[in-house]
């Protein structure tokens, strides 16, 4: 069957003989090589964390964003091609604005996820476009539904999760996320875990320096999507590195 597949990967309008759409799989590949993104629901909130590889030391650090505000109570973290991510995020914002203008109320995470997923899916149906090279994690919080986490993949598949990960370190991250009793975690504890897991997920990419961004929606942020305040982040980072120490050798970084 090795010859099967050749010639069937130029357009997502054509299946391969064994029923695959290669362009979508290539888009998924683009995400699998990108820096890790994780999302975690906890007892009283929801956390998004991203690993940001430092590709150029001269680049203005804050410009390299992977977590975006969509609305007051909605945030998106993206793994994959950054430019595609921006295009997808602008769609998130459009859907959010249109819904608000039309209904005079804020869109729920589920509805927003569904609409953007359909949008992403449309890009897997035509020969004139390519699928988004992005997996987006959508975090939302509303009075009615509490904290919710969704993941939208390049294929247009979207599901709700209690915890999820995408990007290069996703396997390691998922293994760690599965060990957590997320329903018992407070938001502050969850931030520590998110940072710890991002460090573990980075193992496979060890030689490259990286930054971490963490955002949350919880009581401390007044149920708005915000980046975790610096002092909480620093404290969580310290605790996370400490927790990693017994099994990993983080001495060098600790003394920096």
């Amino acid at each position: 069957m090795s010859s099967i597949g050749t010639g069937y990967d130029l357009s997502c309008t054509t299946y391969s003989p064994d029923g695959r759409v290669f362009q979508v799989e290539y888009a998924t590949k683009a995400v699998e090589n990108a820096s890790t993104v994780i999302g975690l629901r906890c007892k009283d909130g929801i956390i998004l964390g991203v690993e940001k590889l430092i590709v150029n030391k001269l680049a203005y650090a804050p410009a390299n964003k992977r977590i975006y505000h969509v609305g007051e109570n909605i945030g998106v973290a993206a793994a994959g091609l950054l430019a595609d991510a921006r295009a997808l995020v602008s769609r998130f914002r459009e859907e959010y604005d249109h819904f608000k203008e039309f209904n005079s109320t804020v869109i729920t995470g589920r509805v927003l996820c569904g609409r953007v997923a359909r949008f992403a899916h449309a890009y897997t149906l035509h020969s004139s476009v390519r699928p988004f090279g992005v997996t987006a994690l959508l975090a939302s919080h509303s009075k009615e539904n509490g904290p919710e986490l969704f993941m939208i993949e390049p294929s247009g598949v979207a599901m709700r999760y209690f915890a999820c990960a995408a990007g290069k370190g996703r396997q390691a991250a998922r293994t760690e996320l599965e060990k957590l009793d997320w329903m018992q975690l407070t938001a502050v504890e969850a931030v520590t875990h998110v940072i710890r897991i991002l460090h573990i997920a980075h193992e496979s990419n060890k030689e490259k320096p990286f930054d971490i961004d963490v955002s949350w929606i919880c009581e401390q942020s007044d149920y708005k999507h915000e980046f975790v305040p610096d002092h909480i982040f620093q404290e969580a980072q310290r605790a996370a590195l400490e927790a990693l120490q017994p099994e990993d050798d983080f001495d060098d970084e600790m003394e920096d």
Partner: protein
Amino acid sequence: MTLASAARQPTFAPSDSGAEKPMSAPVAFSRGGTPTAHASSPIMTGAAVLALKYKDGVMIACDNHLMFGSMDKFRNVERLITVEPATIVGFSGDYADFQYIKSLLDDLVLKERTCDDGHSLSPRHVFEYLASMMYHRRNKFDPLWNTLVVAGVDTQGKSFLGQVDLRGGSYQADTVTTGFGNYLGQPLLREAVEGKIDSIDEEAAKEIMKDALKVLFYRNTQAANTVQIGVVRRPDAQAGETKPTIQIDEPITLDTEWGFAQMVVGYR
């Protein structure tokens, strides 16, 4: 149709007869055949807004009522809104138009937030935005029927106080009033505030406000005695604060004395 009956046809009546139409001077018509008309008066209205600068920031106050003509129709309406992170906007005039303005400001705040570029909306930005928007609407001959008061603290920690009217006219001052407050409130505020801003603390400012609101209630049929006071405080550097704080108090009812009314000719 005879020529005589055509001559009797009113000049501006819509007519689809297609027969001889009366000659008339060119007039701006919308499609329906009548001149385009927009709202020419407010419907549900808020009365005066008063605002002043004091030592620690700015204070803004107004009553909680909406009038339908001269009828006191709604008695529990918040007429002050916050515009994150350091501005309060109050209005007099049409409530529906103000609700629309509120939705515009909500969008403005959200856009600023999603940019996530480390900047934030200062009261001056809100003020300029509202002034441009109101002027634009008056140029369309479709004004939003409001006088808006913008009070806040800017990124340098300075107090800001300004007013925008329905024609887009705008100014800044140490004391600002709208509507009937221009006649009854402004002189009282000026008397109390001009040249003394740095010696008025929050308690004193509140007393000045309450006095002025009381006079409004006594003298203006459209003013009410349930009022709300909002403040935006400058960050207190000594207490380690870096950001202004916004506070809009719960409505209070002013104590008023009507005993003397017995002496007024025509009261009973």
